[in-house]
């Protein structure tokens, strides 16, 4: 049985590890360190941890100031609250291409019971549109740890790392190495392709099993980097299978699905289906209930794939 852990847990653990290797790393949080798991870094490096209180705009710009002086700041809060600092991220961080690592947790509808006000389903769209910004949404502990290590080793501009609250099963393995702009094919079907990120990768794997039972071979790709996106992997899938389903715990407007569609529209038009929040807000419920109600769970993904094949 594969390990089950939230991506935020891998984030905290890896941050504490890379803090050892890179003394320039500093961490900022906005009163949520025990939930974002930056507390793991705080315990090890209290002098390099700065709690900014419930003040996300101040946190982002303080991180920017630290970056101008050669520090490698990681700033964390919940995705919905960090989103309020969008203009600070645009004007102060991205315009100057400052190395600020924005690692926001509790993204997506799987926040669950807290309801719509806490469910950031728009964050990838508003981050992806920013020049210089790199957007990463890992699906499990291995992708998360790999991304955090990569960010620490490549302090060359802004990153947005999107993490979840709920526990998920690991789909990758110990030998996985993260590379920015590279996705991974988890299974190699030739009928249809499912490209997913975050917690919908696990749902997509389950969908592939359902499809296999019906004799449909699905290729499942985990696409942790939404920007820059793995164009080669997308184009190969478009050429080698009959269509592409994208799956994300995010609005279908502006996120992974849009990014894939932009590649295909420019280079290799192909039939597509978009699994995600259909331009709507969520509500309170368990993550599984919400995935079912809002059309994000494995059966919905399988159904979209079947529809695509006609």
């Amino acid at each position: 049985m594969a390990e089950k852990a939230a991506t935020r847990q891998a984030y905290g653990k890896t941050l504490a590890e890379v803090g050892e290797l890179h003394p320039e790393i500093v961490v900022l949080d906005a009163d949520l360190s025990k939930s974002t798991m930056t507390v793991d870094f705080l315990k090890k490096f209290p002098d390099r941890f700065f709690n900014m209180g419930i003040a996300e705009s101040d946190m982002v710009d303080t991180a920017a100031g630290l970056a101008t002086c050669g520090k490698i700041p990681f700033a964390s809060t919940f995705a919905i609250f960090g989103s309020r600092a969008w203009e600070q991220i645009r004007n102060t961080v991205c315009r100057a291409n400052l190395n600020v690592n924005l690692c926001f947790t509790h993204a997506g509808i799987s926040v669950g019971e807290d309801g719509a006000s806490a469910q950031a389903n728009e964050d990838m769209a508003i981050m992806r549109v920013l020049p210089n910004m790199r957007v990463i949404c890992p699906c499990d502990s291995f992708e998360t740890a790999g991304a955090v290590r990569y960010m620490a080793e490549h302090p060359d501009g802004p990153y947005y790392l999107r993490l979840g609250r709920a526990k998920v099963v690991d789909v990758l393995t110990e030998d996985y190495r993260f590379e920015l702009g590279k996705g991974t094919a988890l299974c190699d079907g030739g009928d249809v392709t499912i490209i997913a990120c975050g917690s919908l990768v696990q749902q997509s794997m389950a969908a592939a099993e359902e499809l296999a039972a019906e004799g449909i071979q699905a290729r499942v790709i985990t696409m942790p980097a939404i920007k820059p996106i793995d164009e080669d992997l997308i184009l190969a899938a478009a050429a080698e299978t009959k269509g592409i389903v994208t799956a994300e715990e995010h609005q279908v407007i502006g996120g992974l699905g849009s990014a894939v569609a932009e590649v295909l529209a420019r280079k290799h038009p192909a039939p597509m289906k978009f699994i995600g929040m259909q331009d709507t807000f969520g509500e309170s419920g368990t993550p599984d209930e919400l995935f079912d109600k809002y059309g994000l769970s494995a059966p919905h993904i399988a159904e979209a794939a079947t529809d695509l094949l006609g």
Partner: protein
Amino acid sequence: MTKTRDKQKLADQALRLRRHVVEMVYQAGSGHPGGALGMAEVFVSLYPAGELKIRPEEPKWDDRDRFVLSKGHICPGYYAALAIAGYFSEDLLPTFRKLGSPLQGHPCMLKGTGIDVSSGSLGQGLSVANGMAIAAKLDGKSYRVYVMLGDGEVQEGQVWEAAMSSTHYKLDNVCAILDSNGLQIDGKVSEIMGVAPLAGKWEAFGWNVIEIDGNDFDQIFDAFDRARATKGKPTIIIARTIKGKGVSFMENACEWHGKAPNEEQYRQAMSDLGVHATV
């Protein structure tokens, strides 16, 4: 840089800076002359007069004092000060706001020499300055961080988030200069959204507050000295200034916040600054 305290030289540099400001905004056909003219003495004090520990020939010197122009729109004064201090030639100033110029409409650190951080959207500079000041403390460095804010700008809530952070982290290496000219785009600050009492608010946030006439060199230098001597908390210098100072028709007139003079107004402005301009 060595410190200049020669009164005639300081007055000459302030006048030179004001002429540059009018010239730049006129040549660009747009820009923000009012606040830049009002802060001429402070800009001169910081840069050519050597309040800042800087090396214009080595703009990215690690140990330099930092400066954040939070009210980025008054960059004509900032650019003129950088040029007079020797970061780049004063001949570059007329390229302000023109395509391809390093002197962008609002400061851009990737393009302009001597700019420690980009700015332009109000309310953010004090947070950035705090980050720089924390970095100095972490590295055991003695550099100081200066940040220039406006009295209209403090209507932005983030300024007060940052004001809390500065005192919480005891950033006595932060020195804010608040340009208190009483005007903002739509009119008087007191009528648009009152910010009084300014000194009381900053004191309540735990800051060392110094109030001065921001167009008086002696008071400016004295305030910087007192700020440097203050330990355990940040200092804010509330500098009362005359927006548009030096140009008769721009003084205390909010319509000159962000507008370029026409040809006739340009001639008048330069004449007020002792130059017979030919267009």
